[in-house]
């Protein structure tokens, strides 16, 4: 989707030759420290920003040749700070707004609105003002508003920031469902444990470049690469690395708790 993209803000380079493909039916996590260019990159996905060099194709359409309104139907972005996107007087109107704009018939819009509010656990707030909700709830509302109009690609900037455990599970579940429906999901996140659970592929960014991209397992167990972009290793590979140092010969580096369990059982059985 992105091909060798360059972008700068007032001459300060923010993206320096980024190429990345988002696939349908896949969850891609973009990770890296603050200021690495993650948010700048995702703003290219629906044409909010246009590349200075290189190009971005959305389902074959060059973003420089399409309006944001056209692109937004296919690519929905939920930004990190939900307050930048919320403006309606009630939770329900917030979700209905984009759908109306995009010409959804009222009864379809209403039904979809119901569904996504329920999905995000917000149905009891439907008549409240978005501003009376907590940060975590506003974030879920922003997600609901984007899911409402049914884009093919959903981009979530820090979806788990400020979410409690149960809501994190809920968001993880929604991401899995979107993937199963064949949509492409992009998450920008610092949350290595969440990425370990939901992502299929991970791209690590630093200083406006993608420094590593690969399967979630491959990238998130690469301790050196993780450290380079100022992230913390997820707990399981971290423990595995310490076990190796102390003489345990694990055959694979596990990423998830169950994988570590299986590795240990294998090791225990294999011993004389």
């Amino acid at each position, binding site marked *: 989707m992105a091909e060798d993209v360059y972008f700068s803000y007032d001459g300060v380079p923010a993206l320096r030759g980024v190429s990345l493909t988002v696939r349908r039916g896949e969850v891609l996590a973009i990770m890296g*420290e*603050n*200021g690495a260019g993650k948010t700048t990159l995702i703003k290219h996905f629906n044409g909010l920003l246009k590349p200075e060099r290189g190009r971005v194709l959305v389902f074959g359409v060059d973003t420089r040749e399409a309006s944001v309104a056209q692109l937004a139907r296919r690519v929905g972005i939920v930004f990190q700070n939900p307050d930048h996107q919320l403006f309606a007087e009630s939770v329900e109107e917030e979700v209905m707004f984009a759908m109306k704009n995009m010409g959804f018939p009222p009864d379809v819009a209403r039904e979809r609105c119901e569904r996504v509010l329920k999905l995000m656990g917000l149905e009891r707030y439907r008549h409240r003002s978005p501003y009376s909700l*907590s*940060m*975590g*709830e506003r974030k879920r509302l922003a997600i609901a508003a984007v899911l409402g109009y049914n884009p093919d690609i959903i981009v979530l900037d820090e979806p788990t*920031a*400020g*979410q*409690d*455990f*149960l*809501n*994190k*599970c809920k968001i993880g579940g929604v991401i899995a469902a979107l993937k199963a429906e064949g949509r492409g999901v992009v998450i920008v996140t*610092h*949350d*290595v*444990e969440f990425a*370990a659970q939901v992502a299929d592929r991970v791209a690590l960014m630093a200083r406006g470049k993608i420094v590593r991209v690969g399967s979630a397992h491959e990238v998130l167990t690469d301790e050196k690469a993780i450290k380079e972009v*100022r*992230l*913390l290793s*997820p*707990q*399981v590979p*971290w*423990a595995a690395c*310490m*076990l190796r140092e*102390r003489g345990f010969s694990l055959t694979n580096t596990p990423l*998830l*708790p*169950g994988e*570590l*369990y299986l590795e*240990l*059982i294998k090791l*225990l059985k294999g*011993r004389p």
Partner: protein
Amino acid sequence: MRLVELRDVSFRYAGDDDYAIKEINFSADRGEYVLLVGPSGCGKSTLLRVLNGLIPHFYEGEFDGEAHVAGLNVRETPTHVLARHVGMVFQDPENQLFLSSVEREIAFSLENMGLPRAEIRRRVENVLRLFGLEELRHRAPYELSGGQQQKVAIASVMALEPEVLVLDEPTANLDPLSALEVLSLVAELAKEREVLVILVEHRLELALRFATRLVAMKAGRIVADGEPREVLERVSRLVGCPPVMITYKLLKLRGLSLEGPPLTPEEFVDSLIRGWEVWRR
């Protein structure tokens, strides 16, 4: 009397049907690092607002029970007096910082307290050093990274030398390394200065390693309170648990018991190595 003491405290916001917190009994002393967890909307922030008197002084509603902080009755003590004993840090440091330099930011509330100049200088230098902010002293807070801003916010609060430090999701907007740095700094302070830390934080894998005590809330009530490991085993369905604890549980289901449960990778590895020799026999 303990430093913080809440007895049968309930609060209902004006206009709400339900109580936000119900019959809370909680007390804590200097040097404790209390991690307060529970689903959003369970009353954690309401509880914190009682500690610094925002409830009942700013938020209207129905307040029952007795709340004492540093020996002061919260209901009868104005918030500016409580503020000397209880420092508050919020999720978004931008809302707390407004001056043109880090140094002035930290000095501001000290000036407001009417402290002598020499004392202000001493305290400012002290926290600048403690938080590693000396090189940033002349920089404007808004130019700093989120992690640095949060450090400045905590430093300004700590300059007031409160006995209680209350932090409401202070790392929600920080990257993991900065979050870990901020939380461990707070842990050091709790130890060195014998401050009581009360921290609300969802990222257990980061925060648990520092906590001396874990308190879980649900629907306005405290449902578990005590040693972090014991509490977590009971409430992990509600608040989640660190990944290494899941591996520990899987091993246990198979009859491979370890000491624990482990909260961090280090603990897991240590108890696994101890258990390993026994299993191999």
